Every structure is written in C-alpha cells, then in structure tokens.
C-alpha cells in the first residue's frame, strides 16, 4: 500500500478470498517460475513527495537554457503563452480523460477538437483538418505517405530547404516502404529552384514537400509550386509555421493540397521538444486517405448536436494492416492547447502577434547586419532568417551564450559561418538591442 495503491492488507485478504486464492503470489502462477523475479528490481531508492520536489528543483537548476534570452527557432519558438491556456489544460476533465471512445461522455474533448480542426483548417486555408499528429515532422512524413496513397505514385520530391530533422523523419517513414525520395535544390535566393522542380517532377511524383516559410525563414512561391504540381498530377504538401499564417497567405488558398506543421508556437511550451502536436489540413476529397483521428458533427437520438470520432474505418483498430497509419494515441491535449490559444488570441490578437514577430525579426536582422553580419538570401522572410557571421558560428554561439543569450542556430549546411535566427513577439527592443550589442562585441573578438 502506498499513496497510489489503496487496498490495505485486510481488504486485500477479503478480495483474495472472493477470488478464491490464498496469497497474491497464487495469481502469478501463469508466469513460468523461470522468469518470475525473486528479488526486487534494482532501482534507486523511492523518494517522498518532498524529496522529489527537491530533486526536480536540483535538476531544473542544472539547466540554464531557460534563463537565456532566446533567438533560436528551427521548429520550436519562444512565444508567450496566456495563463488561461494552462488553466484549461489542468482541468481533470481534459487531462485525465482517455481517447473519446464513449462519445456521449466525451463531448468536451470531442467538441474542443472539432473546434481545433476548424481553426486549423481556417488558418491553413483548407476545407478540413484532422485531430492532430505527433509533431510537425511526423505529420509531414505521414502527409507524404498519404499523397502516395492518393496518387498511387511511389516517389516524393522534398525541398532542400526543408528543416533537416523533418527530412530525416520523412526518410525514416518512407524508406521501409521502398518509396523514393528526391531532393529539390534551392537557388541562390534561398527558394526552390523552379527549373529543378520542373525537371525533377518529370519522373512522376506523388507529392512535392515544400516548407514555407522554409527552413531559412523565406516565403516560397506556393502558387507556382502548386501549379507545377497540379500540372504533373502531384500533390503539393506545404509545411507551415502556423504563426506565419497570421501575416502571409494561407497555403490552402494558394493551391496546397495538404498543409502540415507543428502547433508548438500556438500555446505549447518549448519543453525541450515535446509534447507538441502536428497538424494536418487538407481538402474534403482526401479525407478518406488521411491518417489520424477526425471528429465529426452529428446528432443524438433527440436531434441534439453532438460530436463523434468519424471515418474510423481508416484507422488501425478497424482496418489493421490496411490502415492509413498506425497512429493511435495522438497529442490531443496539445491540440486543445492550440485551440485555447487561438480562441484567446482570436482574429485580432493572433494577427497582431504574427505582425509583431515579423516586425521584430526585421528589426533584429537589420541590426545584426549593421553590426557586421551579412545577408545570405534575398527573398522575403517572416520571422526567421539566416545570416553569415564574420567568423565561426559556434564560436559566436559560445560568446553569446556567455552573454546570456541563446543565439541563432549554427547551420553548417550553409557554411561554418551561417546562423539561423528566430524572433517572437516576446522579444523586446531592449533585449534585441542588447543582443546586437553582444554580437557586435563578439565580432571584435572572433576573427
């Protein structure tokens, strides 16, 4: 008996009597003697609640990253999260519930996710969205698989300007199925090379996977990509930073067939990488080929509006080896965080946040360039940008870390001197000026 296990010896004995055995050990007789453990597991000694609090405080103190002023992005962003988000997420009713298998007593989760789907679809400019994927990377990989189901073609083209981690995940997901992946190079402006696209797509492709704003923060020409894809019977999968959709056109409106991304910027803490929630939005026509859960609106026997998981015949528990994906548990609570965040910020607040990210990123970029960095690409960016530094990026990183900043990410792919910066609405002018100052100083030190 402990703080989580309620039945004391007396009760347990009564229960064993009802069961018809004498000792607890009798219940383990099906476990072959040979594998039945005799002693205890070799684990660290148990801790009381108080000791555990102290231990976690110690671990938290061994971290320092959270105290740095963050200019790093590349898939995870330091946005402000209104306190109301977590107040909802910590409601027992939401966070301790299981997947809404019994719809009549799960309307809370179901309606919330229905609203999430609506907001994501509107953000992406598509007709529909699913209930969420693990993260942006796996959503991208699943979108590629989905495109192959839709088109029956076994090859995808992936932009060279896609986040390299996403690219790795796509490979992991696609390789065992024997699918082919080809990379579309980017041009000197940092954008997809349209000529290369046209050439590569000749060989037939299920999809073109394009990130916009791309890994370097640059806005791709989605309309053009979509045209090319369409002309070649390929789908266009766009990986989008949801914040950017507050300022730039929705990929769905520009012809993207599937829009995926990570919901982290929408009310989810950076949390060393997870849990986040991938989103996947598409047109109604493709719903039946889509991976993951989807919530639909319906009625109860009295005609009251209600919500259920629908199109389950695509899913693993029904379709088994023919399922559209193996995904079962997803990241529902994080999708709820997205929904709460988007309702709080709302039309005006969300757009203002996106605008501020944009303005601040441009302010920082100009400041860093003035202080000695050089632009790498000329294409317009939203809130992330790559610069060439006057020296080794890792050396700059060290110096800026010591100055209390988490600077941009060194991007060896662009050279030893390249760094990718991200800015959120949370950064103040003061912080940026201080960062530019520290960078300036570092320029004098690194050669």
């Amino acid at each position: 008996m402990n703080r989580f296990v309620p039945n004391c010896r007396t009760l347990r004995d009564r229960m064993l009597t009802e069961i018809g055995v004498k000792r607890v050990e009798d219940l383990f007789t099906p476990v072959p003697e040979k594998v039945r453990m005799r002693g205890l597991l070799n684990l660290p000694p148990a801790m009381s609640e108080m000791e555990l609090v102290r231990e976690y405080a110690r671990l938290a103190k061994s971290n320092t990253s959270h105290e740095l002023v963050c200019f790093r992005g590349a898939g995870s962003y330091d946005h402000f999260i209104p306190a109301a988000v977590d107040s909802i997420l910590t409601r027992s009713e939401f966070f301790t519930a299981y997947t809404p298998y019994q719809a009549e007593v799960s309307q809370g989760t179901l309606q919330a996710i229905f609203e999430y789907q609506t907001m994501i679809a509107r953000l992406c400019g598509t007709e529909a969205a699913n209930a969420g994927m693990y993260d942006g990377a796996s959503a991208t990989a699943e979108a590629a698989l989905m495109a192959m189901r839709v088109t029956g073609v076994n090859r995808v083209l992936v932009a060279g300007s896609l986040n390299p981690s996403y690219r790795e995940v796509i490979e992991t997901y696609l390789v065992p199925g024997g699918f082919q992946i080809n990379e579309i190079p980017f041009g000197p402006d940092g954008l997809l090379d349209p000529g290369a696209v046209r050439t590569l797509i000749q060989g037939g492709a299920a999809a073109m996977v394009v990130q916009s704003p791309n890994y370097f923060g640059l806005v791709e020409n989605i309309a053009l990509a979509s045209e090319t894809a369409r002309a070649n019977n390929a789908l266009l999968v766009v990986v989008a930073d949801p914040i950017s959709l507050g300022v730039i056109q929705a990929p769905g409106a520009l012809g993207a067939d599937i829009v995926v991304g990570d919901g982290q910027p929408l009310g989810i803490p950076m949390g060393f990488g997870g849990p986040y929630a991938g989103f996947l939005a598409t047109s109604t026509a493709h719903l039946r080929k889509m991976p993951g859960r989807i919530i639909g609106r319906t009625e109860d026997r009295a005609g009251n509006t209600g919500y259920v998981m629908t199109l389950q015949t695509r899913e693993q528990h029904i379709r088994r080896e023919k399922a559209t994906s193996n995904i079962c548990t997803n990241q529902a609570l994080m999708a709820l965080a997205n929904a709460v965040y988007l309702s709080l910020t709302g039309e005006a607040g969300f757009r203002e946040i996106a605008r501020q990210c944009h303005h601040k990123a441009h302010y920082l970029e100009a400041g860093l360039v003035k202080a000695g960095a050089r632009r790498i690409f000329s294409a317009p960016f939203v809130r992330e940008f790559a610069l060439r530094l006057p020296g080794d990026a890792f050396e700059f990183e060290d110096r800026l870390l010591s100055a209390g900043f988490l600077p941009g990410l060194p991007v060896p792919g662009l050279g030893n001197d390249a760094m990718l910066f991200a800015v959120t609405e949370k950064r103040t002018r003061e912080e940026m000026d201080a960062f530019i100052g520290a960078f300036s100083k570092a320029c004098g030190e690194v050669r």
Partner: protein
Amino acid sequence: MEKTLFAISCPGRIGVSLPECDVPETEIPNDLARTGEIGLPQVTEGQVMRHFVRLSNRNYNIEKGIYPLGSCTMKYNPRLHEALARIPGLAALHPLSPDHTVQGTLELMHALGTCLCEITGFSGVTLQPAAGAQGEFTGLMLIRSAHLAAGEPGRDKVLMPDSAHGTNPATSTMAGMKVVPVKSNDHGMVDVEDVKAKVGPDTAALMLTNPNTLGLFDSNILEITEAVHRAGGLNYMDGANMNAMLGVARPGDMGFDVCHLNLHKTFSTPHGGGGPGSGPVCCNERLEPYLPNPVVVKNNDGYALSGMGNTSFGRLMAFHGNVGVLYRAYAYIMTLGAAGLREVTEGAVVNANYLKARLRGHYPVPFDNGPCMHEFVAGGPEMAGLGLKTLDVAKRLLDYGFHAPTVYFPLIVKEALMMEPTETETMESIDEFAEALIAIAREAREKPHLLTDAPVNTPVLRLDEVKAAKELVVVEPREES
C-alpha cells in the same frame, strides 16, 4: 448543448492583451500578405474560460470514477507530476539548446532510460517514440535493421496472434513487413505449434503482447520465443500491458529482444483525452546499434545528446520525443521505487481478478482457466440471445455514471467487454462497478429497452455515427455574411 466558439464570436472581442509593438513596422510585401478574415473566434478571456470549463464538464475523467477501459491502464495521475513538469527550468528549454545548458534534463532522461532498462531487462533504450504505435514502429525498424545488417533482407514477415492490438498489424505495414497471423489455442494463448509451423527464413519477428489482450500471461512464452530465435527471427514484445509485470517478470528474461512501454499507461502519465503519450523502446545489445537518433549518453563532461552513427535507422520526431511525459514518468518511478512498483502490479492483478470474481455467473468470461493478470475479457453472447449488443451494455453503464470497458476488442472474443480496473481503484469502487454491471445484466432480461435506449443520463443521447460519416461535417461551416 454548448455553442461553439464560432457561434458566440462577436467582432472586436479579444481574449488577450498585447504590448504595443516597440519596433518600427516593416511592410509585408503585398503579394504575400494575407488579406481577409482568417475566421478565428472573437471572444474575451472570460468567454474562453467559460466555454472550455463548460465543455470540460461534458467529459468523463479519472476523477469522476473508475475508468475500466481494458488495454488502456487508466490509473490515477499524480498531481505532483503536473507541477514538476511545469517547473520553468524544465519546461522552458529550447530543444536545440547546447548540451551544457540542459544538463538537468539530460541527466533525468538518462536516469529514466536506465530505470526502464532495469524494469524490462534490456540494455538499450530510446525515449523518442511519441506513443506506443511509434514505439512498435521503432522496434520493428530495429529488427529490420538487424536483419539487413546480417544480410537477410528477405526477412519481412511478422508473426502475430489474432488477438493483437490494431497498431501491431498497422505498424508492420509501415515497417514494410507483412503480417502472418498465428492462431490462439483454446486457452486464449498462442498456439505454439502454429508458431513453429510458421516461423522460417522469411520471419522478421514475432510480435506479441504479454500478458496478451485477454489479460492472460502466455505460459509458453519461453518455448515460443525460443522457436522464433531458432528460426533466426527476433521477438518483439508489445509492452502496453506492462502494468501486470512490474518487478514480477521482465521481457528481456523471456526471450524478447525488444519491447516498447506505454508511459501513458503503466507509468501514470495522463492520457490528455487521447494524448500525448510516450512509447520508449528498450532492446538488447544486438539491436542497440540501430537505435534512432539522438540518444542520451553520459561522458566525462556530463550528459550529451549523441547520434548513433550511420547504423541508426533514423529519426522519429523533429526533436527528442515527448520530454514532458518523460518528466512525469520518471517522477512516478522515483516515488514508488522497486517495492512500490511491485505493489502496483500486485494491486492491479488483485483488482482485476476480484472484478472477474464478482462478475462470475453474471457475464460469461471466455478462457477463464486460471487467474488473469491486470485485465480480463468478458463476452456478451448471452446478450445476443436477448437481441442486445455489448454496445448496449456499454451505453447503459454510462447511465450508471461509469465509463464503459473497452468493447469489441480483442476481436477473438465475440461481443467483448475488456475490463481493466487498475491498482488505483479501491475495493469499494470495484464493488460499485460490478454491482452496476450485474444490475444491467438483470435489466437486459427484464427491461431490455433500458439498454437499447441508453444512455439517457448523459450530456447527449446516443449519437448517430452513421450520419457523422455520411455527412462528414468536420469543421464549422463559415457563416454567410
């Protein structure tokens, strides 16, 4: 009915307050700029809170009562863990922070991995998989990598009992493998002879849930895993049911080569209405080289995230998995220690057997040839005789204020009712649940309409799933304006 946020939206309302922009504005190029409304709700913070709090009240949850979903291990989620995972020094970390700025988290991940290896009897571990299904994928990819490395690309069959969870076959497909079903014997366990007959040079793996989805521990486990090994295959254990075995038996000791764990089941991390979970994979030395990138290693400078080199089969997530879930699971293990974890398993098994005993005579329990482990499956064939379905029993349970068990799974039991009370339930709450089920069995005979009309005490009546699939309204239509 709770109106949607879109229905209560009203132009100009806002739920946040933002600072003035303190830098000069930079124009967004006209051809890129988004114009027109996005269509996000316009509501105040108070409206948002009221909306979601009211929605929350339309959910069942573990704090309302027993949540006996079989195979789901719905146990109490300790409140402390929620607070710990939110400590800013643990939660506000950029995932691409340099190792030396995240030593605390890396230390915890390393320690958790070590604990999980001890619990499973393995030596290698990845904490990256986001859920059980991704853990399965990881496991099969490890196996695939080992066979490829051994020059046996032809090993692409996965033996799997017909009682397997849906993710098992679905995962096999994703891993480029084909499912070979193996039969269950009339004790509900794997038919050893069938395994022996089906293993061969094309066998990549046997994939087995143990205890299986009937809640039965496969007593022939050593013979089975050995048969697979002898044929050159590897053994994968679906560890979703590990709650039945903590400190009692370890997959690594049973001949398995690899298994995944569901931290959101066995290790008490909350399910969140469907996720997030976490599905770490533990494996033996043979499979370690193929683990996904990155893994946490300990070296002279402390802890580091490190690639496995080019033997790794790849990467599963953009970053390092659901770290927030790991924080909670580690707290659970540290709270209970070895003795506490054993108590968990004993409690779970006693509770399941007690519930089974209480229902004896009221519901048929197929394969009831000895103790079950942490769960068991009852069947509803008698209901069928009354023109009733397991679904009706489930819906009627909602009227009694309980959540229903898992229904229609595993597929090998007709009209299955799969029940897992977990160790955190008291004897009293199991009694109340059993009495409700017994009352429903009586109602089925005497007032069957109570079952077919059910539920009636719920926020909505029985919902029309056919209509949902046919009309397919998956987003709120935009208002015509």
